[in-house]
Every structure is written in C-alpha cells, then in structure tokens.
C-alpha cells in the first residue's frame, strides 16, 4: 500500500483507492496485471467519466444553443457548465476565453491559422524550442508556406533544457509570437515558462504554451503565468479523446479572424456578408463535441477533488524512484536530465532497440511508448533513432515501477 499524505493534511492520497476508480486497471495483459505506464500518450478514464458519457447519451442528448425544447436546454446548460469548470480550473478571467477544440493539436492549428492570417506578414518571425512536439512545428511550417515567415528555434542543452539567454538572443523587432512547450513529452523537461513569458512580454510579444503534458501534473494558473494562449488535450487529463481546450486572452481572441466558418460561429448571415458570433463561439464552428466536452468537465471535477498538490507529489516520488532504479543499471542511459522534470522518463538501453524493449515489456503486462514520440528533432539532437518512455499518472505505484525495472533487467539478460 502506497499511502501519501497530501500537503493540506486533510485529504489522504490513497493510490489503491484511486486505482479502484479506473475499471481498466484491473484487466490482464498476456496473463499479467496491466501496468499502464503510457500516460503521456493518453491517460485511462475514471468510471465517473465513462458514466457521464453514458448518462449524456441516455438522458440528455440534443444539439446545443439552438432548441427551445427541454433536452436542448439541458445539454446546453451541461456544456456551458463544463466550460465554467475549465475556466475555474485554469483560473481564466472569463469563460469567453475558453474555446472547445479537438485537442492540443487542433488548438495550436487554430492559433496558427487565425494568428497567421490576422497578425503575421511576410518577413515576420516566430520562436519555438528544440523540444517541440511535431504539433507545435508543423502548423507553423504550414503558415510559413503561405506567408514568408521564419521559424527560429531555441537550442536545447545536453541535459534537455533551454538557456534563457539563447532564447532572448533570438528576439528581434520581427518576432511576432513565441510558441513553446510547457512540459516536454519526450524529455520530461518543465520549461521555465514564467521567465519566457516575462522576457517575451518585455518585447510586447505574445506567448502560446503547449500545455498538453502540463495541466495534469502542475498547478497551471493562466492569469498568474500571464500566458496569452494555452493549449491542452482532454484525454491526457483523464477525460475523453477528441476534446481539448484553447485558452486565449479575450482581447487577443477578439482581434483574430475566425478559424473555421459554419454554424454556431455566426450571428447573422446573408449571401453577401456574415457577422460573426461573440467569444467563445466565434471559434466553435459546427456542432461541438458536446458529450466529450461535458465528460471533460467531470474529469476536471474528479481531478480537482483529489488535488493537484497531492497528485504532483505522488508522481514526483514515482519519477524519482524510477529514475534512481533505472540509473542503477549500467546499460541504461536516461535521455533528458533537466533539473525540473515531470512524470516522463525516457531511456535507451545499450545495443537494444526501443521497439524490442517495448515488445518485451508488453509481455510483462507493461505498456510504455517506444519511438520518436512525435519529436524527431529531439531524437536527432541526441543522435538516437528512438527512446523507450515510461510516463506516470496519479494511479501508478512503486510496485509498478519495480515491474518495469524487472522487465528491463530481463531483456538486458536475454540480449546479452
């Protein structure tokens, strides 16, 4: 039993109790208990979230913002209540700043498209880092194909960190946006986004944070951070797939043109002209992913009830424990040794390809991710084709880390 006392000393963080909330954690894989350590790819869902989806389709389903009938009012209320939950969760100043999207990738594409059309002109520059997920590289390259903008990249050090001085050197009068990952999905690095935002704002440059790996591990307060945009995925914070959020400062969102055109994002349409709806609907064309948006609100409720401080403490202990155990094996090299890390442990084993590691561990019931993690430039930076990545969530235990390490030892023995 792993019992950790939460910071406030009132709630007891009981991982065994939490595990019971997640039905999938009791299944077996190849005859072994599932040891799910692929949480950076997607997290498992608590029963309350699964039940909410069933409840929605069983007793609430109707299109929102349209009908005057009972069900439409019910689903509209649940949908908008979820937006308020997310607004509170991120501490945004208004629900008008919370836009439902398909996920982080969609959110970044929204900004790239709208900011690209509305604010960028030939010769402008944007800054990203060397540890971006492809989803914060490719959308900008698409913009760069239409407008002659330049993408500048902050280099990363051997430990997997960025140097703020190097970042500041890239800023010039042509820089129009800084778009950086908060927590690296392949290295686990927690970037100094507070400093990045301060430096960027000194030069009046807005900052977009890719928060896909951040909101489920860190206390994220968009007003305190003062970020201009924040993108996140629902399925990485115990919610359903296909739903995500773009937070944006109201003033900035009002200045941008719409992303897509269609229903819900208009207030008046004639064949000659259209008046767009107000925020956040201006950016939500077409029928939204209503059920998943509502269930994301349930996931946020579940997450908040346990509390980010207790969760972060527990995950931090797991990361430290796993790092210590794996570093103890001379054949293993950890990729990403930043001073501040969160829940992601990437490693390579001497002379054993990560895909062989992945297949071996699968037979121990252990699910990890192997490959380039959609960060090929990071792999090139370390001159490796791929890594094995274990990533932790609130329901993981030290016993599971032991199973992972046992599996790694086994494969080292077989490949000797």
């Amino acid at each position, binding site marked *: 039993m792993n019992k950790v006392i939460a910071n406030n000393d009132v709630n007891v963080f009981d991982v065994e109790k939490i595990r019971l909330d997640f039905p999938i954690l009791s299944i077996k894989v190849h005859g072994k208990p599932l040891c799910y350590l692929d949480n950076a790819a997607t997290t498992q869902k608590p029963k309350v979230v699964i039940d909410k989806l069933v409840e929605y389709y069983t007793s609430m389903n109707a299109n929102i913002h349209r009908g005057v009938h009972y069900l439409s009012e019910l689903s509209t209320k649940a949908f908008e209540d979820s937006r308020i939950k997310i607004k509170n969760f991120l501490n945004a100043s208004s629900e008008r700043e919370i836009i439902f999207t398909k996920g982080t990738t969609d959110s970044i594409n929204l900004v790239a498209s709208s900011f690209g059309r509305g604010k960028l002109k030939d010769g402008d520059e944007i800054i990203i880092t060397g540890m971006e997920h492809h989803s914060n590289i490719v959308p900008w390259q698409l913009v760069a194909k239409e407008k002659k903008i330049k993408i500048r990249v902050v280099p990363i050090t051997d430990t997997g960190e960025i140097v703020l001085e190097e970042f500041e050197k890239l800023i010039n009068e042509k820089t129009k946006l800084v778009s950086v990952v908060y927590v690296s999905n392949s290295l686990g690095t927690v970037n100094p986004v507070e400093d990045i935002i301060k430096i960027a704002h000194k030069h009046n440059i807005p900052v977009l944070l890719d928060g896909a790996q951040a909101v489920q591990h860190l206390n994220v307060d968009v007003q305190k951070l003062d970020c201009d945009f924040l993108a996140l995925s629902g399925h990485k914070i115990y919610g359903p797939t296909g739903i995500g959020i773009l937070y944006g400062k109201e003033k900035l969102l009002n200045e941008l043109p719409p992303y897509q055109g269609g229903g819900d994002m208009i207030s008046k349409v004639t064949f000659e002209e259209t008046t767009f709806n107000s925020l956040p609907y201006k950016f939500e064309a077409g029928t939204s992913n209503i059920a998943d948006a509502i269930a994301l609100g349930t996931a946020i409720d579940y997450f908040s009830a346990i509390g980010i401080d207790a969760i972060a403490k527990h995950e931090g202990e797991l990361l430290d424990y796993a790092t210590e155990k794996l570093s103890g094996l001379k054949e293993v090299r950890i990729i990403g040794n930043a001073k501040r890390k969160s829940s992601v442990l990437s490693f390579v084993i001497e002379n054993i390809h990560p895909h062989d590691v992945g*297949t071996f561990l699968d037979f121990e019931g252990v699910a990890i991710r192997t490959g380039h993690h959609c960060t090929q430039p990071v792999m090139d930076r370390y001159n490796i084709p791929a890594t094995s990545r274990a990533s932790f969530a609130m329901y993981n235990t030290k016993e599971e880390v032991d199973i992972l390490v046992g599996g790694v030892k086994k494969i080292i023995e077989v490949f000797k």
Partner: protein
Amino acid sequence: MDTELRELYQQVILDHNKSPRNFKKLENANHTAEGYNPLCGDKINLYLVIEDNVVKDVSFQGSGCAISKASASLMSSIVKGKTKEEAEQIFVKFHDLVTGKLTDEAAIEELGKLAVFAGVRDFPARVKCASLAWHTLISALKDEQNVVSTEE
C-alpha cells in the same frame, strides 16, 4: 520467457542482431537502395554487386530493432549467389511467411534459416521490421535510386 515471445526472438535472430553479417559498405557496389520506416526510424542502406544477373556480393548498414537487423543480416547471407529472379521469389515466400499466409510446413522448411521469422506473424506491428530489408532489396535489384519507405 513467454512461448510467443521466444518464437519471435529466436536465438538465431538474437545472434544476427548482435553480430550482423555483411555489415559494411561495398565500395564497388553497382546497385544500391535506402530503406526507411518512418514509424520507428529504422534505416537501412543496401549495397549490391550484380554481374550477369547474379548477386555476386551484398552488404548493408543502418540501424533498427533486432528483428529488422537480423532480417537484413540473414537476407544478405541468403541472396548472395542467387539470380535476381531467385531473390525475388524468396522475397515473395518470406513475405507470405511473416504475414501468416505461408503455413505449409514443407514450404516453410524450404526457406531454410529464414524460417526463424515465422514468429513475426503473431506480431502484426513487427511485420514491417522484418520486411524492410527485403523491400529495400527489391528496390536495389531494380536499381531505383529512390528511398523505399514502409509507409508508401
């Protein structure tokens, strides 16, 4: 080790992974091709010396998982001395083997050492690892200078 896993990682495969045969660059190669699996980053450069329609010499370089490396190593040993047509015929049978289409014991036996890849059929995600070297071979035989990708 689990039986299914042992079927996949047979001793011959582990051995060829550890000490791949013909792992070098042939300076006098007259047919070459590059193979790439974008999903896992496996890469292979294949070098052939073909004279009078016969593969006189073959070598490869690259990086990949045990399955892809052992497959390239065994392929290089087996096609040496074969005509282009013979090599192509072996590829067809090998492909049937790893995708589970070749089940006749006698036919599998005919593949000789390549039969160790039979276990791959239980791992659909690894079929591409086993067949990358062979797809690259076919490309080199045709002397297409393009990069072969498993995703095309």
